[in-house]
């Protein structure tokens, strides 16, 4: 990968829901930044509405969501619905957090690209987000 092509990829790292466990989100945000991405970190306690609004306003290429409160089913469903409503469902969405294995398939069926469980390496996360971001850029004719 060249620095110039990742440099253009813009990622929204969002803490959706009420939990304050921001270590994972911040570590990922930092790793993305170090890899040359443009990163916007929302801070904690975001609602699905706020995340979608930020994604559209900032015209991001990828949304990375972090949830460790157990509310992922309700919150992700709402987030994906809103993205569709606003015609922004071409933005690939990733989810990270303490997600029980049985919940992964239903979440993917909502349209979430990938679920990163605890223990996923930063390298893997960065690489998948890079791929997804580049694909979206290509689709939009960059």
């Amino acid at each position, binding site marked *: 990968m060249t620095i110039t092509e990742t440099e253009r990829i813009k990622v929204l790292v969002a803490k959706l*829901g*009420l939990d304050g466990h921001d*270590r994972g989100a911040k570590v990922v945000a*930092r790793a993305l930044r170090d890899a040359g991405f443009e990163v916007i970190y929302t801070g*904690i*306690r975001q*609602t699905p509405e706020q995340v979608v609004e930020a994604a559209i306003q900032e015209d991001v290429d990828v949304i990375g969501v972090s949830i460790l409160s*157990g*509310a992922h089913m309700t919150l992700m469903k709402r987030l994906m619905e809103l993205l569709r409503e606003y015609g922004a469902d071409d933005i690939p969405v990733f989810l990270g957090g303490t997600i029980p294995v049985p919940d992964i398939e239903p979440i993917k069926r909502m349209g979430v690209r990938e679920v990163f469980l605890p223990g996923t390496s930063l390298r893997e996360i960065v690489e998948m987000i890079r791929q997804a971001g580049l694909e979206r850029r290509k689709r939009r004719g960059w």
Partner: protein
Amino acid sequence: MTDYREDFLKKLRDKVEKWERETLPKSLSRYPERMERFTTLSGIEIKRIYTPLDIKDTHYLERIGLPGEYPYTRGIHATMYRGRIWTMRMFSGFGTAEDTNKRLKFLVEHGETGLSLAFDYPTLLGIDSDDPMAHGEVGVTGVAVDTLKDMEIIFDGIDLGKVTTNMTINPPAPILYSMYLAVAEKQGVPREKIGGTTQNDPLKEFIAQKSYIFPPEPAVKIAMDLVEYSVRNTPKWNPISISGYHIREAGSTAVQELAFTLADGIAYVRHLVERGHDVDSFAHRLSFFFDSHINFFEEIAKFRAARRMWAKIMKEWFGAKKERSLWLRFHTQTAGVSLTAQQPYNNIVRTAIEALAAVLGGTQSLHTNALDEPYRVPSEFAAKIALRTQQIIAYETGVADVVDPLAGSYYVEWLTDKIEEEAWRYIERIERMGGMIEAVRKGYPQKELTEASYRFQKEVEEGIRKIVGVNIFTEEDEEEVRNVPLLDIDPNEVEERQIRRLREVKRGRDSARVESTLNNLRDAARRGENIVPYILEAVKAYATEGEIMNVLKEVYGVWTEPIIY
């Protein structure tokens, strides 16, 4: 000056030198060491062996001493667990009040000796269950509490005169405390008899746990209102649990956990002294809460150093005179962050080792994590194994039969000194910034944590830090993970049930009384009075947690944190 005779030290020095010249190279050539540098989890470099030379300046009488005596390095009580085993306090709570009431009774039946309530996020943040922000979160990570009615149900059939209860609650701590008081009153238990703890530690919320609501200064003021009220009215209650646990879980090192926790404690003591209280009138009610992580000896050394440092701070900085004012009494929880989602049954082993470290470190009470906690609030099955782990340590291993058995270990004493020394450096830096309230406002500890956690993650990925099932001895098959029986809760059903009750309570209460108690609270807060008596009145009128918090937010404002990563 040293406790050792000079001629002995000289002989020992010669012997060590000879060993390094003759014995060591032979061994090294046959068995090269596994790593070039060995470090603790906090990054403290560890030597190959430790001898009296490493602790020759640690004066036994002054620095180590005897248990139950200053500086309490060896424990706050003379007999420790020979007299009484630590309190086995399992953090629990989920769903609605009925679900939690059932779980508490289950744990008590299986030998738990102290209750500990976990609340859901809306409750932790002072949001009612019918608030749109609460959607999807009601009863998920803990029990939902909106009004006194919920607390009445949680403790139905549990005599508050006989149990002690920890409540992990921070900005709304005075509300939950008032509810507990009101339940006790209804049960006919006198105030002087109720025992337990409210976490009520606002500074670590800004540093780590992030369930802050008010800005730092009013947050400390409100928390200290509760300390002031509790010391006068509920002499057996611990109104604050100054917590390193969350700081550690958010990615700090052991040294940072220790230093930031004590610095928080210093800020609270200072605030209360500035309010005009004699330090000996409240210091004995301050309690602490630490993490017990997986790096075994480092944790034990941290607990021992913590006691010694706090005793010195209270005695020398604040001039405390009563013995109890010098005690660092603490609760420990094993490290949730050390548990892995992969090969989850290994978590039982991790927790057992961490629990052992807490016991060897002299904890007063202990929570052991359940194997399924990387996923969800524990199932009954998993919670029981966790409790049994403590019982095995207490009754089978014999470690509880002797006080502070690791004292005198050259390594442990050296590490205790080293951790203390590094922690003092942090405390001094924070003091120079003007204390922890200022440091938090500037984002200093937040930044330190961000750096430490990023460094740790990098080390895991580079294989410098090894985690079984994560970066070594990994398995592809996820069957084991899939087969862990998880607690089955339907959040939608819980939310509906909870909202229904909230509406019923609101319909049944005297709304004029609610309004007048809330107005009285607002006025008292504006006048700068202690707000706890007013909150108690509002709680008794069945005002909701959200209604009370909204009044306080009006008066004190809300905090938005600087974003640092």
